[in-house]
């Protein structure tokens, strides 16, 4: 199913796969879908998550303690796809994808029912071969746009993106924040000049007020660390806690 953000506010939910284990991740994702998440980002744990704050760093460490791999994440996607037509994105640092081989990865992900891919540390300039492989297999290529991106860069990002564009709300690593930064709105406005694709805003979004505010000017809100933190704080009842949290996030409409 194509990535769609029909509802307002629309939610993109990120989970680190394998935290605390793959079976629980599956239950969390299914619960998140039932609670109304429009797109699921399947986070591939990486040993050196340099764009992530402490919450996702800890989740990656837990997932890697039992060696959760990219193959495992693809298998998990296949399992989810059998039960749901939700949008599925693989969210990874570049090295695990390169290690598997970009072509092999794209073929396997597509076959499993994945809709798109986002590689955190791959800017558009370096993406030539990546784009060719992902396109060949019909995977959407989602890129990040940042408050520091110049208009020239936003144009390149818009051109390379399919599916949607992910606007990083502020400079910094992933993690919850009390207040939504002002940066995000102006990046979205600048980016709109160059694309008709849906725009999702992420980094720091952790409350219903944040998601409601984002849905005023963007198509979706991405929530990551706040979900991962909920998982960390509720051992044994991860899925129900995440469902409850997502219900809260989506409760306040615009």
């Amino acid at each position, binding site marked *: 199913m194509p990535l769609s953000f029909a509802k307002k506010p629309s939610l993109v939910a990120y989970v680190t796969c394998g935290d605390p284990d793959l079976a629980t991740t599956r239950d969390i994702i299914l619960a998140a879908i039932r609670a109304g998440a429009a797109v699921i980002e399947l986070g591939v744990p990486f040993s*050196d998550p340099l764009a992530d*704050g402490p919450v996702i760093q800890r989740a990656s460490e837990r997932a890697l303690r039992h060696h959760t791999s990219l193959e495992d994440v693809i298998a998990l996607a296949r399992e989810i796809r059998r039960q749901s037509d939700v949008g599925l994105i693989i969210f990874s640092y570049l090295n695990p994808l390169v290690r598997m081989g970009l072509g092999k990865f794209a073929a396997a992900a597509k076959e499993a029912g994945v809709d798109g891919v986002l590689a955190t540390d791959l800017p558009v300039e370096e993406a030539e071969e990546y784009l060719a492989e992902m396109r060949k297999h019909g995977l959407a290529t989602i890129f990040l746009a940042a408050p520091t991106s110049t208009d020239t860069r936003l144009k390149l990002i818009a051109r390379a993106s399919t599916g949607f564009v992910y606007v990083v709300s502020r*400079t910094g690593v992933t993690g919850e924040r009390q207040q939504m930064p002002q940066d995000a709105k102006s990046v979205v406005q600048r980016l709109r000049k160059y694309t008709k694709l849906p725009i999702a805003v992420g980094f720091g979004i952790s409350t219903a007020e944040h998601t409601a505010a984002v849905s005023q000017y963007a198509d979706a809100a991405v929530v990551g660390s706040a979900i991962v933190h909920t998982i960390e704080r509720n051992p044994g009842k991860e899925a129900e806690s995440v469902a409850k949290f997502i219900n809260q996030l989506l409760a306040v409409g615009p």
Partner: protein
Amino acid sequence: MATASVAKSRNSKKPGRFGVYGGRYVPETLMAALEELERAYEKAKKDRKFQQRLQHLLRTYVGRPTPLTFAGRLTQKLGGAKIYLKREDLLHTGAHKINNCIGQALLVERMGKTRVIAETGAGQHGVATATVCALFGFECVVYMGTEDMRRQELNVFRMRLLGAEVRGVDSGSKTLKDAINEAMRDWVTNVRTTHYLLGSVLGAHPYPTMVRDFHKIIGQEAKAQLRKAEGKLPTAIIACVGGGSNSIGIFHEFIKDKKVQLIGVEAGGRGEKLGEHAARFRGGSPGVLQGTHSYVLQDDHGQIALTHSVSAGLDYPSIGPEHAWLHDINRAEYVPASDAEALAATSLLARTEGIIPALESAHAVAEAIKRAPKMRKSEILLVNVSGRGDKDIGIMRENLKLDGK
């Protein structure tokens, strides 16, 4: 194992590429800052005033040129090639790292930034960064793995004495790689005001090129000094390789002299198993880590491996992309030296020449000890002594059983 690739095309002409290696693999937030740095550097490179200031500081503050020392007693003892030592250990702060720090500090000033962050392994780059920040009046934060803080305690104190804040990093292997992750996290957060003063020929473009340029003076001086002393080129040049800044610094001037063998010495650690060493060309494979595409020690799933070396400065799972390219085109050769060999080389150099090398540099000396006896007396070995061993006295005391003489 399949050859992993992100860039198959031979785009070595592209700036920041060394064959297929190098590039710029960072989160989008940092791209504008890297572009700004590249522009500032390209402009400064051609600016005569910048170059004059750099040369002036290198001469009057850093202590260049460094001497080339003929190691007569070591040569005699090994009974083969004549050994010359390039004495980067005599520079201010005790290692070659200051060459790059002075250069980048001048750039920071040009870009109008006031806060500098850095990573450090052995602490030499941290000390050099803290030093230039004191000299230029910049705020300075240095990230250092807690394991490295323990084994390079003296350098931690030196940085603090120089007014820098040292932040311990407790994740992963608690060494250089983890310190770089944390520095990148700081940079991505404070990118508008902060310059990341990266200390090796690693990371995203323009760092590998820029840092190499600030160090290539090592090879330029050595070539002229050797010409004066011997009237010829060396048979081989040996330097240790962590990220690879001192080695590329002494190699670069000689790359076009095809007859000169270039030998990089990696940390062989305490064994050949993954996790026991930091020899990227023994067991590493192409991958992407911390901004650049190069050889990486990793597992089958692309997770970065832990490393070990007695010397904190070589204890890193990747290597500068230019080295990856020199390796693949067979222009340079890379060999390991073990912890034990480096320690033995330290005492031999101390007792024959009165020079206590840093444990990093001792890896280069160890390779010279293996190689010199097999060479003719008319041949010349040039060894880069990239730093002095004061910082390592604690580790040496733990590991070297002195015979009381």
